[in-house]
C-alpha cells in the first residue's frame, strides 16, 4: 500500500468559460478531495494557472494527472510536490484587540513578520504570507485573543530555478508513465518539509 500525502499540482488551462467547472467536476467525479484550489492568470496569454492541493497516494496522483490531461482544455499538468519548490499562502486575520492587548498582538505580528493592515478600536486586521505551517503557527498564538474573521487563499507554488513548468506548450513531459507511479510509490516520503 502506498501512503497518502498532499500533492500539489500546477495546472495550465485554456482561459475559457466553464474550464474551472470542468476541472472541479473531474475531482468530484473521480472522488478526489481538493484541499485547496487557486486560479489566476499565467505568463502565457490565454492561459490560466491553477494550483491544486489534493491528498492522495502516488498512484492516485498519476491517475489524476492523466485524467486532467483528458480534459480538452487542459494544457499542462505538473506535480510539484517534490523537488525544489516554493509554496506560499496569503491570509488575512481579523483579531480582537483592545487597548490593553493591542501591543501584545503587535509583537506577535512582528515575530511572525506579518503586517497589520487595519486598526480599529476593538480589532486589527493582520496580513501574512508564508507556508501553511507558518500561518497555522500565527493563528495558534493569536487564537487566545479572539479571531473574529479569517480568510486564507490556499496554496500557490512555483518551482525554483530558471526553468518554467510550462517551457514549451508543445512539449509534454512523459507523465503517462504510469510506470513512474509504481517506482515512486516506494520513494514517496510523507514528511516533505516546506522550506520558508
Amino acid at each position: 500500500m502506498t501512503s497518502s500525502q498532499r500533492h500539489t499540482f500546477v495546472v495550465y488551462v485554456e482561459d475559457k468559460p466553464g474550464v474551472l467547472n470542468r476541472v472541479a467536476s473531474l475531482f468530484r467525479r473521480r472522488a478526489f478531495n481538493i484541499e485547496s484550489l487557486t486560479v489566476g492568470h499565467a505568463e502565457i496569454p490565454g492561459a490560466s494557472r491553477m494550483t491544486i492541493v489534493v491528498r492522495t497516494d502516488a498512484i492516485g496522483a498519476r491517475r489524476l494527472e492523466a485524467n486532467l490531461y483528458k480534459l480538452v482544455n487542459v494544457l499542462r499538468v505538473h506535480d510539484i510536490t517534490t523537488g525544489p519548490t516554493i509554496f506560499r499562502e496569503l491570509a488575512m486575520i481579523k483579531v480582537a484587540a483592545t487597548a490593553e492587548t493591542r501591543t501584545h498582538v503587535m509583537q506577535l505580528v512582528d515575530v511572525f513578520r506579518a503586517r497589520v493592515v487595519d486598526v480599529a478600536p476593538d480589532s486589527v486586521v493582520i496580513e501574512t504570507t508564508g507556508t501553511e505551517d507558518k500561518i497555522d503557527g500565527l493563528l495558534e498564538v493569536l487564537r487566545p485573543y479572539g479571531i473574529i474573521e479569517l480568510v486564507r487563499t490556499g496554496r500557490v507554488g512555483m518551482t525554483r530555478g530558471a526553468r518554467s513548468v510550462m517551457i514549451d506548450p508543445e512539449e509534454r513531459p512523459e507523465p503517462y508513465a504510469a510506470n513512474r507511479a509504481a517506482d515512486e510509490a516506494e520513494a514517496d516520503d510523507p514528511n516533505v518539509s516546506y522550506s520558508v
Partner: protein
Amino acid sequence: MASMRTGAQIIWEALVREGVSTVFGYPGGAILPAYDALLEYPIRHVLVRHEQGATHMADGYARASGEVGVAVATSGPGATNMVTGIATAMLDSSPLLCITGQVGSKLIGSDAFQETDVTGVTLPITKHNYLVSHVDEIAPVIHEAMYVARSGRPGPVLVDITKDAQQGSTEGDWDPQDVKLPGYRPDLRASDAEYRRAADLLNSAKRPIIFAGHGVLLSGAMTQVRELAERADIPIAMTLLGIGGVPAEHPLNMGMMGMHGEAWVNAAIQEADLLLALGMRFDDRVTGNVRTYAPNARKIHIDIDPAEFNKNVKVDVALAGDLSAVLDDLAPLVEAGDRAAWLATINDMKGDVSVRDIQNLPDSGHLYAAHVINDIWRMTDGRAIVVTDVGQHQMWEAQYYHHRDPRTLITSGGLGTMGFALPAAIGAKLARPDAEVWVVAGDGGFQMTMAELATIAQEKIKINVAIINNGYLGMVRQWQEFFYERRYAATPLLSPDFAKLAECFGLGGATVKTRREVEPTVERARADERTVVIDFQVEQEDTVYPMVPAGADLHNMIRRPSPAPIVETADDE
C-alpha cells in the same frame, strides 16, 4: 468569392464536409432553424420516436462502421432524453456527435421555456461539450467536436447551439482541417525502455494470456493481435466488448472472460503468470474480487487512455498509445514461442468444465434461450451483426453466438443500458446496409424502446428481432434467485403479444414456443423483406451459468447445478 450562410446551413454544410450522410433526430422549437435548412442538404434524416433512440441509433451506427454517429435534438426535454444514450456511449468509448438546440443566447439563465443547462447536465458523461452562441463559432466547433469524438479514446461530444446562432448569418468559407486544440494530444508513445520491459516480461512468461478488449476493434488491431498470439503461441481471452476482435473459431481464442465467461477461461486467468491486456480496462465484471485476481500474474497494460492504468488493477508495465501502433512497435521485440505445455494445461481445465454443447441437446419440447441463439448463429454462419440488449439473453448471446468478424456484436457493456438493442440495430443497419442484422432482446428491455418499430416502418428498414421472452426481468430474477432467497419482487413481467404488435406497425410477427419451430421461423424471417419480430417464448426460470457473483473471487464461480440441471449435457456434471 464570399457567400452568406446562416448558422443553420453551416451546421449541415460542416457535417457534409465531414462525410456525414445520415443523422438521427427529432425536431423542436430551439432546433427548428436547423431543421428548416436540412432540406437543402444531402443528408438522410431518420425521424426517431424518442431522443434516447436517436443516441442509441447513432451509437449503433458508430459501432458498426467506426464512423462518428450523429444525433440531433431540441433543447430542454429533447436534450435530456439523450442523456442515457450519451452515458452509454461514454462508458463504451463510442464516437458520437450530439447536436442540441438551445434557447436564444439572451435568454440563457432565465429559465426560459425549454431551457435546460445541457452542457452542465452532460459534462460528466461526454468526452467534451460545447455551448455555441455565435454563428461564427459553429463550423470550427463542429469540426473540432467530430475530431475529438473520433480521435484518441473515442467518445460522445455534445454541441449545444443557441437559436440565435442558428438564425444568424456570416460570410466566408472555412477549412475543416483547421482544428486548434493546443491541450489535446491523442498521440502518445511510451519510451523505448518501457517497450523493452514489456517484451522482456512477455518473452520470459511461461503461462501468458492475451486479453482482447474493445480497443482491439476501435484501433483496428485485429491482425496485429492475431499475429502476435500466433507467433508467441499465447491464448487469448476476450472481454464482452472485445468479442469479434479475434475470430471465435481461432484455435488460440478461448472466448469470453469474467462474470459469465466460461469457468475454465477464468481458471486459466487465475493460473496465468502474465496478462497482456490490450485495450481493456479491468472492469469489475471481468476481474471479480481484485484482491484475489490473477495473483501470480505480471501485468502489461496497453491502452490509449493512460487514466486507465493502475485504476482497478495495479500493473507492472503500461504502454500508452494507439493499440495498432504500439503492437507494431512491440512485435519485433517479442520472441516466437512454443507454449504447448501451457495450452495443454488449459485444455485439461477445459475438459473438466466444458461449455454445454447445445447442438446435441435432446429436444425435450422445451425451448431454451440458448437453443434460439445457437440456431440463429448456425443459420447465419456466425456472420450476422447481432445487437443485444441487457440481461440474461445478452450473456447467452455472448456464450452461444460465435462471432467471426469485428464489429458484429454490438452491445451496451459499460452502462448496461436496457432498451439499447432495437434503436442501435437501426443505426447498425443504416451503417452497413449490406449486412444481416439481428436484435436479440429481452421481453423487458424490448419494451423500453419498442416505439422505434415505427421508425423501422417509416424508414423501411429490414432487420430481424429475436425477443427472448422469459416472462421475467430475467437477470434481476436470477440475482433474486441466488442472493435474495427467490423473492421475486417486481420481476415478473406481463408483455403484449409481440407478433401482433409488430403487425400493427406493418411489420412481420411470429411466435415460437418449441425448438422445432425455431429454424423454419428464422428462415422465413430472413426471407421476408419486412422487419420480422419473433417472440421466442422460452423457459421462464432458466439461469445464466457459470457466474462470478459481483465482487467474488474469479475462480469461485457458481457452476451449473447438478443434479437436475435445466439445460445440461453429460459434460457438465
